[in-house]
């Protein structure tokens, strides 16, 4: 089980890096989403995968009955998903707005902050 999830995480990483190397903003955004999910899977595997017993101790008991799932990675991933989703939503709106205003979704054509053929270094002094 661990190996399958780990390999899946690897596939996600690969696809994410491929997409992030693109110049189109939408592809890069999709790459970010994939990367986030690859990391989430990574945290899940890094915790522990086991038989599905909820990590709840019964009343009076000091430990769960059987080997339980590790709750901490799940809590971490939950937080990371929420944060990642917020970031994704913001960047999506930003990319759309930039597409409208700058009429470009290609990062090579977004050169307002760093104009192509910009000014030469100052020559005096």
């Amino acid at each position, binding site marked *: 089980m661990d190996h399958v999830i780990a390999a899946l995480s690897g596939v996600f990483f690969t696809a994410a890096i491929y997409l992030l190397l693109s110049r189109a903003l939408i592809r890069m955004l999709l790459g970010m989403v994939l990367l986030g999910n690859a*990391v989430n899977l990574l*945290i899940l595997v890094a915790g522990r995968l086991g038989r599905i017993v909820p990590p709840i101790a019964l009343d009076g008991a000091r430990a769960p009955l059987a080997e339980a799932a590790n709750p901490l990675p799940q809590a*971490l991933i939950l937080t990371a998903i929420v944060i990642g989703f917020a970031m994704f939503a913001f960047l999506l709106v930003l990319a759309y707005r930039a597409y409208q205003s700058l009429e470009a979704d290609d990062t090579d054509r977004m050169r307002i902050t760093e104009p192509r053929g910009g000014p030469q270094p100052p020559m005096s002094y």
Partner: protein
Amino acid sequence: MSGAMQDFATHPGDWLVILPVVLALLGGAVLLMLREARAAQFWLALGTVAVIFVSDIALALRVSETGPVAMTMGRWLPPFGISFVADLTGAVFALAAAGVTLLLLVYLRMDMPDRARRDGVYPLILLLLAGVSGSFLTGDLFNLYVWFEVMLIASFGLMVLGGRNIQLDGTIKYGFLNFLATTFFLAALGLLYGTLGTLNMADIVGRAAEASPAVLASIAALLLLAFGMKAAAFPVNAWLPASYHAPPPAISALMAGLLTKVGVYALLRALVMLLPASRDLLAPVLALVAIGTLILGPLGAIAETNLRRALGFLVIGGIGATIAGVALGNAAGLAGSATYVLHAMLTITGLYLVAGLLEALTGETDTRRMGGIYAVASLPSVLFFVLMLAVAGVPPFLGFWPKLLLVQGGIEGWGFGRDGWALALWIAVLGNALLTLIAVSRLWAHIFWRPGHEAATTEAPNPDLKPLAPRVRRLGLGTAGVLTLVVLLLGVWPEPLLGFGREAAAGLLQPANYVAATGLAGAAP
């Protein structure tokens, strides 16, 4: 298992640890609710940050008296509960961040367009401060990730506020690359949790010593990439000069003052305190990164004609100096890093504030078309002159002392171990000081000294200069003046700064007190 729960009340003084963060978050929430009451927003924000500043002072005093202070949330003791721990490094950095934010709020009154105020610049600044303070004070790596993201989303908002095309362009580059960096950080956290089974910093200190250094070094390398991206270190620094000059000057100043420094702080905390064995393995990489950043930063500033873009390259050069301290890894080098972060927070913010005044004076952002300001407005010229000497590290000013410590660290490293990297870092720190001096003195000559525009054949003064409005004079020059005064005072009376550096380095190298404060000493299962 009863040992896992906290069965005593938290000491009232310990609440100081979390007060800066709670106040900033609460203030942000209240300001969001009061978004219609525009007149009250500024005063509320100013009051909140003032109270945060005072509580940071109290925290720093308490920490310097009793050593690190810890507080754990939700009665679960570490390593289960999330801790907030303030040692001297974190407390003083948080104090400096609150102080800089306080001044910037006043400065912001000077030129913020009404539209930005309507869109909520004050709540965003408070959220940014919450993220920065949280990063400095947290004692849990995953919690650090969360504060990074709080800081990030607030800075996205601030950077794009106003929505001009140049801001959209800058924010896209800033946003994508910083989000990428925090995702790498999260990946490193997953691997670290898988290896050590804990994310509490004090707990990691104990367990990392027993784990395989090779595995930890690969995780540390990932952390170095993530924090290096956040701090704009050499090979991954391209986002900073592409974005920091896009928003209005006050916002640039806030970001330049606070954001990259958090990356450096995380680097100090993670590599020096938590994973020292991995830092030793990565020392050559760190040294290469530091040397590249030290040399390329000021070179960029020399080649740049846009004023705030040039300052952005100076920010990068400063980051190189702080990473040089991490690469040296001895007490003097780390003291140099810690004091340099403080110095950069104050000095760089001051430079951006003066740059904002110059842009108001000339209506230009390009240094080729500024010029002749010295004859019209002598006070900004003097402020810029002091700050430029401070950033280059000329003796009586603030920047000299951190660089002196770094140079001392380089000599020690070379003298004790015949460590070639230490020698190279020593040379690079000196080279950085020289190149920075060239860059800033040329900026000064272009902006203030030269009578008119570049390539103007007459000696006539620049006709485009507009005198500053009285309000701008009062608020802008006032805040920049206060900041310059602090830089000046700390420069001529460096004893507190050097004392802080020594204590901070000792705390990072010997985290026993830090671990004890969280209640983990000898409690390992």
